[in-house]
């Protein structure tokens, strides 16, 4: 006997034979009975949306057998969503009543029953004038002889004819009598036919997979197994009409006008679709059956015939939409009283499946229905409980273990109710298997599930209500087929087999998952899967050794013990949208490591579990807090690490920005990964590491002896954070960002403009200039020249003075090294800073794309050119007046001596010249002439931009201004004196003989004295 390990006891062909999409109508009778399990339904009125009383299938059957209404009919709806088992119940009741005396039964399957087929079934085996007319009409109907594509064209033509006369349509809703609806209806009656006749529109509607081929197929052949069509598939929808510019643009003029309006006016489009859908049943009937067939007359004929035969007509309709096209006629026919002036008709019983809102607008039918039976039970104790669910599943599992033909043969040759054998009874592993994996109440083995796994899986696919279709599809069909492939490879249970359940199942605690990943690098996935689903409720590490052994994981048993040391971490929050905890759900332990956390962090802790285990996105708050926690932790690591960084204010703002450089995958927060440095993927390890960080942050006094898992949390967090820190460090020491490079360039130029750069600078000089603090007096214009500095240069200096501190902060943040977050920059990483410095200074191209410096850089060349031109002008303007070989002091002294002499002689017309020139002569008299001639030499040759900037930003312009100002003022004064001399000489007419003057004076004195004596004496 082979070992019970990765044992596949089911057959793929049996699985497939057992699990068609619509078991109710496709499956063979044998399989149908083999898998049938009576699910509970609720009985309540059709218009009642909730509540009701529990009912069994037998009660439904008895309800159908109940006495007819006085009007002679009995309508029993089975209500539920797709896949809930409506068809299954209808078929079961049909099967249970097939021998009912005096019942003329008609069974309309959901699948493969088109309108034409439905009518054929209804009149099958009956005779009568109307019935014969129907047969003839069916033979004459286009559907009888024409191909689908021709029928599609015919359907469109019929629709075009019908929508032109909407008032003739047997509408369900009231025709509008006025206002906008009537206007739209009138307009559509005129223009909609053009749209339906338009070649472009027809191509779209008739394309493969489009609405018209679908409607033709439904009318002719009905639904197909697994075609995914629902009630809406029997109708036009707004999206069926062309609405894109490309589609409309090619249409004919008339059609295009209406299509454009339909595309822009949703109300008009809805009205158009409504009119088409009103016309659709009539059109479908015309091409599929014939417009000549009056179903009400036919029914009367049938019912009268059956009445004469003493029979009742009984319909089993798996889906009322199979009668689309004649549904309204059918409904009108079946509610016709059996007893009337034209004679009596047979009684009528109808058991039909519909979706919940199917009769919302059909009061005449709804009010004539008996209580409905609803398939809307939840999975849980207040609905389909776990025992029911396991029994439901186990029947499928048992059928999947038996050859399909064997089941059909057993059914055909059955002699009792126990016609189906238990496949486990012949299995050599039955005992071990049933002990390990358990059985249903009926004794069918649950393998490869156990109760926990099955409960969790069913819960996962039944978030809102117990859904047999999903259970069959995901637990039987997909799971068993995938498991059959996985097991021989030792891959069971693979991620593929469990994917449908992942999102709605409680995840393993990330710590456990991470630990498993570290322990089982190769097969951690399936180990985790087993622990996640097959473990006992309340503990992810409680899996029987036999289970592990059965799945080939006997070598994990010892490691499982080590995992159990992390038992305290066992907390798995219930899925958010799981309404009722199933047997597989774990209860929250009374005390967990995270129970000591504050509510907000405990919430984040739980979110992380679901983030990794369920692919549930983190909330915005959790994302923000976790990013902040990671950011802070990494920053502290960097601070304590060997990497030289500047942790000052700019660090968080530019170098390591929480919201830019840390990305957590799987978050509702929009994050850009383009500049991310730390990318935290959605993994169990990361989740556990983040949980470890939370614990480390919030529970610093945690005692390891109380919480054994704490140590593992710490190790995991430390390892992970170290890796993240290394990522950050690599970025910090890597090439600087382009914005930083631009800042370096800008800082070099700003430093040069502010006069911090020396001529012929070395790299060290550049660094020194860059880190030279920007003083408010830097390159401030000196009041030596009345003209001042050129305006562009002055503006450039002002901008540089404002810009440099900002750029310096950026540079210091990138290249600086500080101690702690508050320490100033104490060193610079020159090895990282010098490359961009060298790059820029090799070209000195003041162009930058970075908006922070681009405007400043653009202003450099114009300002330098303007200032250089002004400087050149000043130099050349007074160069001829200045003596290069004589000291400035000597020259200014001579000028001042002469001017003072002239002033004393009254020959100096400029009254303030001496004072002003004295002031100028005292300014930097020891260097101005040297600067002047250095500048004179410089302007005489071609200069590079940095050479110009160094000269312009230094003392030279001021010194030149001093020399220029002195020379110009002195020259003006000297010229004035010269002119005065000339003027006076000319006026005096030459020199005078003083001796003659004396003589004349002496004579006059003598005469005067004599006269006085004469007169006075």
């Amino acid at each position, binding site marked *: 006997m082979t070992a019970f390990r990765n044992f596949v006891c089911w057959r793929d062909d049996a699985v497939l034979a057992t699990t068609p999409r619509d078991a109710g109508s496709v499956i063979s009778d044998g399989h149908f009975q083999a898998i049938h399990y009576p699910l509970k339904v609720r009985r309540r009125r059709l218009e009642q949306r909730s509540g009701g009383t529990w009912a069994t299938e037998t009660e439904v059957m008895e309800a159908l057998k109940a006495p007819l209404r006085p009007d002679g009919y009995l309508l029993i709806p089975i209500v539920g969503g797709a896949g809930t088992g409506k068809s299954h119940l209808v078929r079961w009741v049909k099967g249970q009543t097939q021998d009912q005396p005096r019942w003329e039964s008609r069974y309309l399957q959901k699948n493969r029953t088109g309108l034409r087929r439905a009518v054929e079934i209804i009149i099958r085996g009956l005779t009568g004038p109307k019935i014969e007319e129907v047969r003839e009409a069916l033979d004459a109907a286009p559907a009888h002889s024409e191909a689908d594509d021709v029928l599609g064209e015919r359907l469109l033509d019929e629709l075009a004819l019908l929508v032109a006369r909407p008032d003739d349509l047997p509408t369900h809703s009231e025709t509008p009598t006025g206002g906008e609806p009537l206007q739209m209806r009138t307009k559509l009656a005129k223009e909609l036919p053009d749209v339906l006749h338009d070649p472009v529109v027809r191509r779209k509607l008739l394309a493969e997979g489009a609405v018209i081929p679908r409607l033709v197929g439904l009318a002719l052949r009905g639904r197909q197994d697994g075609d995914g069509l629902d009630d809406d598939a029997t109708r036009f929808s707004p999206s069926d009409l062309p609405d894109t510019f490309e589609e409309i643009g090619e249409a004919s003029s008339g059609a295009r006008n209406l299509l454009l309006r339909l595309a822009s006016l949703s109300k008009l489009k809805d009205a158009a679709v409504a009119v088409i859908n009103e016309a659709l049943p009539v059109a479908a009937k015309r091409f599929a059956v014939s417009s000549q067939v009056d179903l009400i007359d036919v029914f009367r004929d049938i019912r009268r015939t059956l009445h004469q035969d003493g029979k009742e007509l009984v319909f089993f309709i798996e889906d009322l939409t199979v009668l689309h096209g004649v549904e309204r006629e059918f409904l009108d026919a079946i509610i016709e009283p059996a007893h009337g002036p034209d004679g009596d008709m047979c009684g009528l019983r109808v058991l039909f499946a519909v979706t919940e809102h199917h009769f919302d607008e059909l009061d005449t039918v709804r009010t004539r229905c008996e209580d409905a039976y609803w398939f809307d039970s939840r999975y849980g104790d207040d609905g389909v409980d776990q025992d029911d669910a396991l029994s439901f599943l186990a029947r499928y599992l048992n059928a999947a273990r038996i050859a399909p033909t064997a089941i059909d043969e057993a059914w055909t040759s059955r002699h009792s109710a126990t016609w189906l054998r238990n496949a486990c009874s012949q299995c050599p592993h039955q005992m071990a298997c049933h002990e390990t994996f358990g059985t249903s109440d009926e004794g069918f083995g649950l393998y490869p599930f156990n109760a926990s796994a099955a409960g969790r899986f069913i819960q996962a696919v039944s978030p809102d209500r117990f859904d047999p279709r999903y259970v069959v599809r995901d637990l039987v069909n997909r799971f068993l087929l995938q498991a059959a492939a996985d097991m021989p490879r030792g891959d069971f249970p693979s991620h593929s087999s469990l994917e449908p359940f992942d999102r709605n199942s409680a995840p393993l605690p990330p710590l456990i998952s991470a630990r498993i990943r570290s322990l089982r690098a190769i097969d951690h996935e399936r180990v985790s899967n087993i622990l996640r689903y097959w473990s006992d409720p309340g503990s992810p590490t409680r899996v029987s050794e036999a289970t592990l052994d059965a799945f080939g994981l006997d070598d994990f048993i010892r490691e499982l013990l080590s995992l159990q040391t992390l038992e305290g971490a066992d907390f798995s929050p219930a899925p958010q949208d799981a309404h009722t905890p199933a047997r597989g759900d774990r209860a929250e332990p009374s005390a967990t490591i995270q129970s000591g956390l504050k509510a907000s962090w405990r919430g984040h802790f739980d979110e992380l579990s679901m983030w990794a285990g369920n692919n549930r996105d983190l909330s915005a708050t959790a994302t923000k807090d976790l990013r902040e926690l990671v950011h802070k932790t990494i920053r502290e690591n960097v601070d304590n690490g060997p990497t030289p960084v500047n942790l000052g204010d700019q660090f968080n703002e530019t170098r390591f920005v929480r919201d830019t450089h840390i990305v957590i995958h799987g978050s509702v927060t929009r994050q850009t990964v383009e500049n991310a440095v730390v990318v935290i993927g959605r993994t169990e390890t990361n989740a556990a590491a983040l949980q470890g960080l939370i614990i480390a942050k919030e529970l610093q006094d945690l005692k390891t002896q109380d919480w054994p898992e704490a140590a593992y949390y710490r190790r995991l967090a430390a390892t992970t954070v170290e890796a993240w820190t290394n990522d950050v460090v690599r970025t910090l020491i890597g090439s600087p960002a382009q914005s930083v490079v631009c800042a370096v360039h800008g800082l070099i130029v700003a430093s040069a403009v502010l006069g911090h750069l020396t001529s012929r600078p070395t790299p060290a000089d550049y660094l020194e200039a860059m880190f030279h603090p920007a003083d408010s007096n830097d390159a401030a214009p000196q009041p030596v020249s009345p003209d001042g500095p050129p305006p562009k240069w002055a503006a450039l200096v002002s901008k540089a003075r404002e810009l440099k501190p900002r750029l310096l902060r950026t540079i210091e943040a990138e290249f600086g090294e500080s101690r702690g977050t508050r320490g100033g920059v104490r060193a610079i990483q020159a090895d990282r800073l010098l490359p961009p410095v060298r790059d820029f200074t090799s070209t000195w191209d003041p162009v930058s794309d970075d908006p922070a410096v681009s405007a400043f850089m653009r202003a450099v060349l114009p300002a330098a050119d303007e200032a250089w031109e002004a400087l050149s002008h000043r130099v050349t303007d007074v160069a*001829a*007046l*200045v*003596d290069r070989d*004589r000291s400035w002091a*000597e*020259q200014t002294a*001579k*000028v001042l*001596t*002469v001017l003072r*002499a*002239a002033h004393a*002689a009254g*020959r100096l017309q400029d009254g303030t010249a001496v004072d002003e020139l004295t002031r100028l002569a005292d300014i930097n008299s020891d260097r101005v002439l040297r600067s002047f001639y250095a500048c004179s030499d410089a302007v005489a040759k071609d200069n590079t931009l940095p050479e110009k900037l160094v000269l312009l930003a230094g003392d030279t312009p001021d010194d030149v201004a001093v020399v220029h100002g002195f*020379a110009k003022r*002195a*020259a003006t004064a*000297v010229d004035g*004196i*010269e002119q005065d*001399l000339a003027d*006076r*000489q000319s006026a*005096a007419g030459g*020199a*005078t*003989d*003083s*001796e*003659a*003057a*004396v003589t*004349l*004076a*002496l*004579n*006059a*004195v003598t*005469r*005067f*004295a*004599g*006269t*006085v*004596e*004469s*007169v*006075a*004496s």
Partner: protein
Amino acid sequence: MTLYDQCVDLQVKLDAAQTADASVAVVAKARQLVQVLNEASTYLAGIEAFKSRMNIQERPPLDAAAVMEAVRAFRGGLSSHGANAFQHQPAAKLDRVTKEQQARATRWATSRWRELFDPYQPLIERADPDQMVGNSIHRVTAQARAATLTMVKGLDPITKADELKARLGGDDGTAAWLDTIDSIAAQLQQALQAIDAERAALSPEVQQILQMASSEEGFALSDLTTSLLDGLRLAGIDTDLVVRRR
């Protein structure tokens, strides 16, 4: 040329100009002083002639001692400093003293000249146009002579000797002027007497009117009667009177 070189040259020019400025100033000062001295000498000489013609024995109140002291100091300066002495204080003092003596002489001479007209002052005052009523010829004559005497009286007999000569005639100077002055005064007196005679011939009413018209109050127009107007017309003096607002 550099500023420095330009200034070197300019300094030489300034020095030369300074020297030249000094010589010119001395000469100018000398000329000014000579002019002052000569003017004063000429005036004083005119005083001598005036005294002689007018037979005035009184001497002008000149301070000869101050003059001599200033002259001595100036001459001492010249001997010590040469031409530069014109720019020194003694030269300035001599200039001031000379001007003071000339001013004294001028005040004395004009005073003596005006005293000559004192006898004729009542006649001159009677020739006030407001005071005279009568034949227009006599009135004009009287006014013209009185004006001549008044104008001549106001002239400086030393510095305006030429103008006096033109108005009073005579080449020999003052003596002839005195005769002319007497003659003019006589003509003035005759004209006044003729006016008085004419006035006396008027009716008492007309004389009263003329008297009242010459008074501050005037003659009220309301008091004018036809007979009075006829009397004025008859006397030929109606056109001498005009109506004025009070």
